């Protein structure tokens, strides 16, 4: 019997091995071997993760935190030591399964998707690096390790989004994604430095068992102002959250995520479902007791999440690019997960419903979102464009894809008994229990919007008459390697809700909270009914607008003859343009330009002045030594006269 530690090593090292071997040896020429290795290793990693999970949840002792292994990485001062280890608790085990499974599916899919690409070997190598980084992040035992893998996730996403580096749009999207998340990460790093200074440790176990009472009220100098030690801790928690804010692409740092659609579709799929964007939510979930010491931090998390949820859903209703619709839907779903973590605190009491719901939603969302992206990739592969304009009528040509798409869309819409219903219902319930009625209302409204835009996509892509010449002519088929993972993913998209509910309610509580009593709250029965009612209503509206015999498809797809408000939404509230202006005018044209001017004019000017001065001085002395006798004589006479009248030289 393989023990847990071996499994842990296997899960982490198999993707790393794939990355190294494919990157160094197989990537250039042997594309098939690279693909085979990637699929095998990621498959084995997924199998190990599932085995570990079974062993972990079914073992006789109650699941608890365990550190499988830990190495000292760099010692700093005293107790402050950066370590690399593997933490096992329900949350990380769940994430291990999700990441390895999704990565396995995406690798299989990529065999089909990248079949004709010349750089497929590099692709498989980077994909494994991506899942390795995410796995390392998930099992982190401390903030420092989390930051290490956090950055690796960032860089592998940069390499993958810009995979087609001959495409200028892909290159700029990858740069934008990296720099924007890096901007957030700089605050994360600052938070780590501050918190580690105040607390003296990076370990999650220490940070999660802090109480503000334990901090003496001495002052800490933050440069700009002096603050109490406890306040410094709260500032640190907000800074750390900022890292997650950027990585999870919450408003207003959301713009990189839809633009990241420039990458190959399998990459979008893995970024949106299991890696990268979930990292922000995972960070908050992992450090939840730490964030929960301050109510204001949680309130911030809640509003950031809730606003992004509505904002992204509204934009998604107008988009025509199939991948962008899905991207905005991811933003919206991440908003759900984020705010669910923020609603946990009720007065002085921390309720676990939100935390459980949020982690549950990470789980279910991963499957249906991955599936949706893979489906989108299949469609794009057939019609060679992302635009809904060119789709339509694909139902009969791609029956399996059609059925799986329906399952995943019902799941994301929260229709029972599909998986999304269970997790989303819990989130909405948590908002209600937390007495955050405004957020509760927004969540219900957004669940309607979600159903609407997802079915809009569904009807426009699969129903109606074909609008693409290739589809009309029948040049459409389902690729086996690409359809297989879609079909496999439809199973958890359907069942993970029902099967997971019990597991999550039993095991998923956010660690050791400093609040001793966890409130048990009554379940309001009318909430799921209301949520489903709204979803069904939205479905009917979408059907009426886009699929009923009376629907005017051409009118629906036309974005030019629209009201001003529609155009503002269609242009994503002009956020891309705002960013562009700020970066161009303020950073490049402002700060950078002034810095360079300061250097080139002031510093070089002073230098030029010094050089000029020395030249002049040299010239002055030189002319005095020119061998012109009257000058020597004159100087001599003046000197003697001065000496005669003043008795000494006037020095």
């Amino acid at each position, binding site marked *: 019997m393989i023990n847990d530690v071996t499994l842990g090593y296997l899960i982490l090292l198999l993707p790393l091995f794939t990355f190294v071997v494919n990157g160094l040896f197989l990537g250039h020429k042997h594309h098939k071997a690279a693909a085979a290795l990637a699929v095998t290793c990621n498959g084995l990693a997924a199998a190990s993760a599932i085995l570990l999970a079974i062993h972990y949840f079914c073992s006789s002792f109650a699941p608890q935190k365990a550190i499988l292994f830990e190495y000292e990485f*760099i010692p700093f001062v005293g107790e402050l030591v950066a370590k690399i280890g593997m933490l096992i608790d329900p949350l990380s085990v769940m994430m291990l399964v999700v990441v390895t499974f999704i990565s396995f599916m995406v690798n299989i899919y990529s065999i089909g998707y990248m079949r004709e690409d010349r750089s497929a070997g590099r692709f498989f190598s980077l994909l494994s690096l991506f899942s390795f980084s995410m796995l390392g992040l998930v099992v982190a035992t401390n903030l420092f390790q989390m930051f290490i893998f956090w950055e690796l996730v960032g860089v592998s996403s940069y390499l993958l989004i810009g995979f087609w580096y001959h495409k200028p749009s892909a290159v700029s999207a990858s*740069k934008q994604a990296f720099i924007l998340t890096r901007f957030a990460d700089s605050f994360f790093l600052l938070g780590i430095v501050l918190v580690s200074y105040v607390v003296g440790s990076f370990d999650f176990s220490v940070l999660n068992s802090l109480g503000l009472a334990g901090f003496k009220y001495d002052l800490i100098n933050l440069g700009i102002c002096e603050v109490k030690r406890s306040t410094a801790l709260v500032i640190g928690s907000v800074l750390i959250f900022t890292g997650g804010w950027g990585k999870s692409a919450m408003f207003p740092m959301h713009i990189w995520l839809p633009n990241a659609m420039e990458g190959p579709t399998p990459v979008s799929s893995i970024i949106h479902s299991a890696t990268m964007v979930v990292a922000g939510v995972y960070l908050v979930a992992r450090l939840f007791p730490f964030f929960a010491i301050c109510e204001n931090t949680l309130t911030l998390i809640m509003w950031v999440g809730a606003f992004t949820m509505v904002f992204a859903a509204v934009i998604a209703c107008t988009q025509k690019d199939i991948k962008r619709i899905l991207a905005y839907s991811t933003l919206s779903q991440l908003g759900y997960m984020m705010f669910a973590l923020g609603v946990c605190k009720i007065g002085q009491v921390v309720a676990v419903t939100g935390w459980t719901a949020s982690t549950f939603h990470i789980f279910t969302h991963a499957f249906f979102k991955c599936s949706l992206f893979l489906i989108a990739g299949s469609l794009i592969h057939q019609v060679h464009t992302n635009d809904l304009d060119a789709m339509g009528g694909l139902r009969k040509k791609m029956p399996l894809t059609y059925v799986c798409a329906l399952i995943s869309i019902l799941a994301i819409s929260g229709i029972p008994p599909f998986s999304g219903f269970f997790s989303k219902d819990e989130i909405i319930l948590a908002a209600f229990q937390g007495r955050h009625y405004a957020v509760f209302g927004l969540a219900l409204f957004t669940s309607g919007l979600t159903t609407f835009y997802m079915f809009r996509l569904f009807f426009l892509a699969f129903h109606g008459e074909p609008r693409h010449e290739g589809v009309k002519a029948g040049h459409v088929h389902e690729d086996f390697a690409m359809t297989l993972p879609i079909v496999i993913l439809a199973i958890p998209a359907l069942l993970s809700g029902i099967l997971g509910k019990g597991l999550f309610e039993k095991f998923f509580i956010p660690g050791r909270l400093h609040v001793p009593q966890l409130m048990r709250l009554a379940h309001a029965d009318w909430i799921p009914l209301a949520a489903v009612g709204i979803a069904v209503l939205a479905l009917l509206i979408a059907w009426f607008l886009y699929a009923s015999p009376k629907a005017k498809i051409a009118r629906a797809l036309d974005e030019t003859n629209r009201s001003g408000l529609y155009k503002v939404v269609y242009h994503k509230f002009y956020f891309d343009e705002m960013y562009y202006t700020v970066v161009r005018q303020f950073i490049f044209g402002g700060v950078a330009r002034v810095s360079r001017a300061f250097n080139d004019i002031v510093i070089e000017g002073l230098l030029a002045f010094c050089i000029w001065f020395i030249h002049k001085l040299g010239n002055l002395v030189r002319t005095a030594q020119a061998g012109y006798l009257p000058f020597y004589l004159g100087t001599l006479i003046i000197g003697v006269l001065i000496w005669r009248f003043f008795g000494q030289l006037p020095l």
Partner: protein
Amino acid sequence: METILFNLIWVIPLLTVLVCAPISASHEKVLKALHATSATFVLFVVCVLTYRVYALSGTPTDEAAAPFLLRFFTDIPWLSAFNAHYIVGADGLNMLLLALTAFIVWAGVLVSWNIKGNQKVFFALIQLLATSVYGVYMSFDLVLFFVFYEMEALCMYLMIACYGSGRRDYGGKKLTLTLAFGSSMILATLFGLYFEGGVHSWSIMELSKVTLPMDFQMWAFPLMFMGFAVSSSLFPFHFWSPDGHSAAPTAVSMLAAGVMMKMGAYGCLRVAMFLMPEAAKIWLPYVVALLIFNVVLGPFIAIRHKDLKYITAYSSISHLGLIFLGLAALTPVGLRGASLQMISHGFLTGLFFATIGMIYERTHTRDITEMGGIMRKMPFLGVGFVLAGFAGLGLPGFSGFIAESTIFIGAFQQDSTLTRVVTILAILSITTTAVYILQTANRMLHGNMPAKYEALTDGCLREKLVIVVLVACLLFIGICPGWISEILDQSIAPIFAKISAAAVPAVGG
């Protein structure tokens, strides 16, 4: 035996020059083979000795070298007229810097294989430069130290003025005169140390046993610190480096940015801060203010530049600023971070300039706006450049991240308002660094390729070897930083002990 080997480190390059002297300049291949062999041999010796220093750590060291924990200690009277000795020895700090130098010299010899002009003289100058840098890091006698320190600037001038590109005369003069200006400041304080110290010795160990008079320290420390800081391009003395680097041939840029610029920071730590700790405690918190330019504005200036070497020069300016942030923190972690950054940045900038040189050899331009898409034609060099970029922006896995995070954590321990502010700004500047690095890589390597680059070829085996070795060094330090931190900590301990023992008088000045 090991002591002899250690002393050979600076002798071998000199011997190589002598051996090559009678060979006619037309036998280029023989000459290059000799130089490459000698550089490889020194590299091997240095690696073995570095390993020995690591393996021996914890065992007692030479008593005569106290308070430093020196291995391979040699002390021979040299110029008896003014009591100068030949004192060399190695602790973790200078041994690692010697290893860095050996790697960069080795890489520098390999990348200059096809240099235009008189190759015999060029390679002889590289070896002389290597001798001087080895000498600076090895010596513990201030006269010896200063002799080697001066030698380096002169070699640099000849190499830039004779083998450089662009405004090579201007760049070479600017570099050498500025460095000479710094040296003059150092020389003045060295005499002060000799006479004011009361022991009439040039030995760093001897001088460290006395407490220098406070009024002397108060003017001598800033003078000496700034004198050294000139070669590490601390604001406002950074102006020589962009022009100097851009004019210099590849190997000289690598050596200048990779090892020579560390000599200043090393001198600040080993001589200025160690011998005058009281004044250091008073002055360093103010020095931090200068770093706002280096660390915060440096990357912004790099954003506005289009010449690859200017970009890298400003990137070096910002990275070297971090060394001073670590030094000014005056905490053990900060000092270790500064030393780590010296080593890490040496490899990183060596790789940067090496790949830039290789790309320039092919494209004959360093203007990134004229390039594009060359990743398709030279994937190996492109990947080398991108990896250097990743190391430069502090990506975990590479040494830069280890050094930077150590500096940040170390600097934050220092409870002074100015240091905190600068540390916070420095942490936030990692975004700006990412901006110029990605912008450069994207413009140069990605996107559309101009038709004129169709015929470009990827790196040859020799070039690939250089890239692979330098990347391996960066990764090695980045992935297993434990051992290097350990030996650095041991060698920093005596320096920190002296600094922390220093009592700052209430009425300092």
